[in-house]
């Protein structure tokens, strides 16, 4: 399972890098979306993937013996998903306005504010 997740993360990052390096602004936004997904999956995976092992301490014990599904990475990922979703929507809106302001969605034309 970890191996599969690692491969998916790798593929997502590769796709996102490819998209980010394209010249079109909308492809850049798609690349950022991929990157967000890849990172979320990574945080989820490094927490350890354990099936059917809820983090509940048995009534007659003081601690869990053996491995369990760690709830914290899931909580972290949930927060990160919400944040990346909000930022993505903002970026999309900004990309639309920026495209209108510059007159093209070619990032080569975004050079006026550089020095």
């Amino acid at each position, binding site marked *: 399972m970890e191996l599969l997740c690692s491969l998916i993360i790798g593929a997502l990052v590769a796709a996102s890098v490819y998209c*980010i390096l394209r010249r079109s602004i909308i492809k850049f936004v798609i690349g950022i979306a991929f990157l967000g997904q890849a990172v979320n999956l990574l*945080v989820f995976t490094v927490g*350890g993937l354990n099936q059917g092992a809820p983090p509940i301490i048995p009534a007659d014990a003081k*601690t869990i013996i053996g491995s369990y599904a760690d709830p914290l*990475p899931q909580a972290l990922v949930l927060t990160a998903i919400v944040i990346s979703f909000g930022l993505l929507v*903002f970026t999309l809106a*900004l*990309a639309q306005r920026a495209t209108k302001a510059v007159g093209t969605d070619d990032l080569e034309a975004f050079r006026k*504010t550089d*020095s």
Partner: protein
Amino acid sequence: MNSLQIILPVITPIAGASIALLLPQKAKIQAAIGIATFIATCLAALSLLITTNEYGYVKLELGGWQSPFGISFVADRFAAIMTMVSAFLGLSISIYATGDLTSTLLKRWYYPLTLFLVAAVNGAFLTADLFNLYVWFEIMLIASFALMTAGGSKSQFEGGFKYVAINLIASAFFLVGLGLLYGKMGTLNMADVALKLSVSPGGPMVNSSAVFFLVAFAIKAGLFPFFFWLPASYHTPPISISALFAGLLTKVGVYALIRTNTLIFTQEADFLRGALIVLSLATMITGVLGAAAQYDIKRILSFHIISQIGYMTLGLALFTQTAIAAAIFYTIHHIIVKTNLFLIAGIIIKKTGTDQLGKIGGLYKASPWLALLFFIPAFSLGGIPPLSGFWAKFALVKEGLEQEYYWSIVIALVVGVMTLFSMTKIWGEAFWKKSPDNAKPMKRLKHKWSLYTPVVAFSIITAAIGLYSQPLFHFSNQAAAQIMSPDSYIEFALPPEYVEHIRSLDNISIETPIAAHSTKTATNQ
């Protein structure tokens, strides 16, 4: 010491922003709420600073969850003084904005957004949890995105997009570093991570996280080679916004670098420190050269932010108590001086109607007081004694000589001279040169009081730090002493029995997440 005080500099601006969003959107009402909230925030930050100075540390465990399980806030002297400076900066700029911004901006979003921004910056300074730091960074980002594009001019959308793009990538790097660190250590409480690493060095496993953090914070701080977003975007929004960014945002990156590299990643630090020295020197040189090529006031000042950041990280890279103290002193001095220069540039642009140095002239004759007000921060930035910048550079150079980093010192001094060159360029062009023939007649300023009050206040502070630098230096030194003894931070932030338990384990296996987790659960009794 446990205290609710620590949360006030974060809660107050959030409350003020919420109220401002609810109340009628009229410029006067919004400005009144904004300024009143910033005054309250300043008082909260001041009381925190006084308490921290007295007790050394202040902490708060949110929701009563004991560290390392809950999210906690810990203030040491460094965090407290940064909070104080950011609150004061917010107050000054909120006064300046009443005279600078158009009423559409003032009516609607300016004050809530700046309040959220300052709240997030304070949260980032005070939090003791890495994931919480990430969340504050994101709040800061979204507020700064909105401010960066507020007003909606063409160049703002263009520059804003670059700013947004690079910051999203930086956030992704930060989150990857966080995720990997959690996988290895099973915790994200800064003190807990530091404690576990001190018992069992993670080696190359932890260095990967350290480098991810370094890249993420270097992008935010504007270190070489990640700074290109800064001069491409900081000159586009109105001055009240870019001054706030120039003063505050990059310094949050510097703060995060100092915090993580002195508290957490101290075991295998030589490797990172070598990289940091090279990055700092390259940052100084490229920043100052970029500034030398510009003839637009805002762009010159933007490039100087970059070159000055190099000095702060050089202080971190030298990694002795005096060097860190110099870095802290430098950061505080820089926030005050740089914001002031942006505000003065705003006045110059308002008066002359342009930011191109070629089209400006004769300001010395037209307004000698403005010339004096510019003189103080500009030559402080260049490092002319007895202004504050001189002492900041002096401390850094002295420590560099003692540590025998001669090349770094040579570069730092040369960059100082070139900074002075840039400042004299602005001085010569805008103030001493005769007004060019095709220049527009100078306008009379409408809101003199609100524009000049913050500038005068900042200039007085700069001169005061310069002439009487001992108290601030003493404070920076104490703050650096705290930073250089991470054990005292760990012992303060975590319960003593927990620290003892972890230290009694002679080797925590941190190769697999499961092992790290079970040590965590084992102590949860």
